[in-house]
């Protein structure tokens, strides 16, 4: 089969007029206060948001962050009709295992900015001195990838999984690889493992996504599922809107940087390690770089379409099981609390179970060293039997 796949280096370069327009909007932001002395009670804390918007307008320097981001090696692949943005940093060791890093919503490839060098770098800590060939894409619908496929189409988890598989195999020439993901990235990683068992040698997840569960649940599992549902009723309104009327919402978020910031900040606040110390986990600069990426690429709407697609047709059905080795790296402050291992094992072949000391939903971002160490530990455990083949696959690609 002839495949239409190619790639070329890419640099982030946002046109000046887009930044000028953003600046003008920030200057004319019309703030509103719904409740008196609300803090985070009614959503984003107005005081925090005032400060964030002021910082965005007066101090934040996109060009500086753009330069920093461009120090990583970015590429744009053309795969059939889709354009896919990704970072590709080959590992520095002789033995290097390809690892695909998948972010979620409402973050971006920034989730892995600090872990990429830790994974790609040669380290002496490991006897076999193994590193990772890191591939960190902007998921379909997100950031510099943006909308993929026909305009009327909303890519499903399966479609994204197929596209990313083609990136790894047809574009980058990897025969076998590891996939790591959280949030939506976890669902895509699972779908890749199910669809392409010959390519995916293991998946590393920071959450189990939203796999449907059948069968009779134990008490502990039922408690957990009930807690997830309670959490949804209390804090899941964002998802309910994104599943049912994303376009009614996106019209304001794509037109108002303050509105976009508030929508995203609200999630980071709920899901970070310590909501009372949001800035310990995410500085204003980090928060704003993530938000600015959504703004300049106008991808808030396409990024939330995934919720609509999942609501209409859940991607991971009850009968589907991930057979390849699965590692779970669980951060204690993730949104749903302590996951019962039994529940994970119903659909996943769990071979590694790590309970982190601290960190929330964006654990890979908040605790890059701990995350990278755990992921690398998993990769090492997989690489022993498969290392030589993986290495051959990598050499084959280099020769191209």
């Amino acid at each position, binding site marked *: 089969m002839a495949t239409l796949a190619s790639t070329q280096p890419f640099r982030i370069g946002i046109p000046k007029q887009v930044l000028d*327009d953003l600046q*003008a*909007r920030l200057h*004319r*932001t*019309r*703030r*509103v*206060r*719904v*409740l*008196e002395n*609300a803090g985070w009670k*009614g*959503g*984003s804390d*107005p005081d925090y*948001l005032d400060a964030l918007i002021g910082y965005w307008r007066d101090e934040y320097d996109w060009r500086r962050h753009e330069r920093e981001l461009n120090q990583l090696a970015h590429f744009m692949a053309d795969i059939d009709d889709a354009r896919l943005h990704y970072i590709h940093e080959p590992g520095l060791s002789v033995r290097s295992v390809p690892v695909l890093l998948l972010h979620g919503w409402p973050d971006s490839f920034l989730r892995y900015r600090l872990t990429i060098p830790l994974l790609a770098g040669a380290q002496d800590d490991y006897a076999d001195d193994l590193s990772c060939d890191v591939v960190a894409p902007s998921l379909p619908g997100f950031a510099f990838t943006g*909308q993929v496929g026909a*305009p*009327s189409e*909303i890519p499903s988890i399966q479609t994204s999984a197929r596209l990313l598989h083609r990136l790894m195999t047809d574009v980058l020439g990897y025969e076998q690889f590891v996939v790591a993901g959280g949030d939506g990235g976890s669902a895509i990683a699972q779908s890749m493992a199910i669809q392409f068992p010959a390519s995916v040698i293991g998946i590393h997840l920071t959450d189990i996504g939203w796999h449907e569960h059948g069968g009779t649940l134990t008490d502990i599992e039922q408690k957990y599922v009930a807690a997830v549902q309670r959490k949804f*009723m*209390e*804090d*899941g*309104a*964002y998802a*309910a*809107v994104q*599943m*049912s*009327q*994303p*376009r*009614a*919402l*996106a*019209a*304001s*978020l*794509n*037109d*108002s940087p*303050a*509105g*976009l*910031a*508030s*929508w995203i900040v*609200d999630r980071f606040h709920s899901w970070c390690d310590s909501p009372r110390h949001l800035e310990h986990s995410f500085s204003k600069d980090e928060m704003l770089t993530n938000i600015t990426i959504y703004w300049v690429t*106008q991808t*808030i*709407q*396409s990024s939330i*379409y995934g919720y*609509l697609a999942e609501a209409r047709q859940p991607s991971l059905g009850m009968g589907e099981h991930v057979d390849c080795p699965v590692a779970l790296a669980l951060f204690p402050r993730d949104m749903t609390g302590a996951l019962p291992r039994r529940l994970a094992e119903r659909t996943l072949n769990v071979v590694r179970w790590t309970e982190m000391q601290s960190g929330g939903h964006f654990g890979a971002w908040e605790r890059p060293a701990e995350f990278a160490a755990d992921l690398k530990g998993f990769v090492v455990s997989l690489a022993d039997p498969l290392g030589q083949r993986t290495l051959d696959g990598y050499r084959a690609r280099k020769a191209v």
Partner: protein
Amino acid sequence: MDIARARPFEISVGDPILADLDVRLAATRLPPEQGPDGWDAGASPVYLRDLLEHWRNHYDWRVEEAKLNRFGHFRAEVRGADIHFIHERARNHAGGKPPLPLILTHGFPDTFTRFLKIIPMLTDPAAHGGQAEDAFDVVVPSLPWCGFSHEHRHSSGLFGVNDIWHALMTEVLGYEHFGAHGGDWGSTITEHMARSHANSVIGIHLTDVPFWHSLKTPADLRPVEREYVEHIQRFQQEQGAYTMIQGRKPQTLADGLNDSPIGLAAWLTEKFQRWSDCDGDLDACYTRDEMITNAMVYWVTGSIGRAFMPYFDVFNAGPQRWIAEAVKQKLGSQAVPAGFAMFPKDLSHPPREWAERFFNVQRWTEFPKGGHFAAMEQPDALARDIREFFRPLRSLQ
């Protein structure tokens, strides 16, 4: 005695607000036209694009403002709130009794403009195919958190509006007895008023059974009632996202809607499209001017965030509040005569048996056409029903 006085009021939006709006409309970044066609996933991109074009090039707020100002507008300080209201007295009234005062209460995502079409039909029925003796003195307030009304602080919230309305009608306007009509939040507030102020309220006329009754399901449901309750639960699952976000995270949503006129219009028109009898075509029910003016009332007053307060109040009403409401319901009157006008495309279809559990139902009319915003969609039919419902009650004045 310090009796609050109504002050005449004219809507007059400052030029800077309109100039700023022009800048925003010209700079609008519509979302890319991707995803499902039509209204399937929220607001139709084609409708939004056309609405924006109309707003920028054809809509004239000053013309609409002048039309609004043809009504008699007032404000009054009532129970810690600065209430805006229209007060239009009966015209060409005939018959022995004075005209019946009637307060009309709107909901979300509409505004006081919901009732503009029926005001003349109620104040001057003789000029609109009705009878002169059916004339009303009409009062149309803006909810305390909406549009040109303003709460100094959000104290009793949704549950206290009926007391404000009662004080407005009796203390400010000097009416001893009056009727009340409402839809959406307006029906909840009207019901509260009938319960707590039965000596003043001679009858209530509603276009829906307040939704909160369905939060408790009695054991002896008849099949038609069960069907209704299940429909409400399905509605909450499929379409209830807006209530969750407005109730749980009003600030987060308002941050965008108060900063983007097209975003505000998208959020509001989506509800009109779903809940109106328009076969999916919003233009078939409402002119674009109507939709924009409705959004403008929220925009020029910056009140979209406060407008979510009733949702917040319901989501955050603790057990104490619900106990207090249950006590009020028990002690309050259920004797006030109630009339219901039901429209087929409204978001729920309660059977009469359900309404009779909570109301003294004297009239029940099911109309062949119309939706949630009947006063805008089917003004003649609704006005006629209101006039006929109150006709036998006028002697109670």
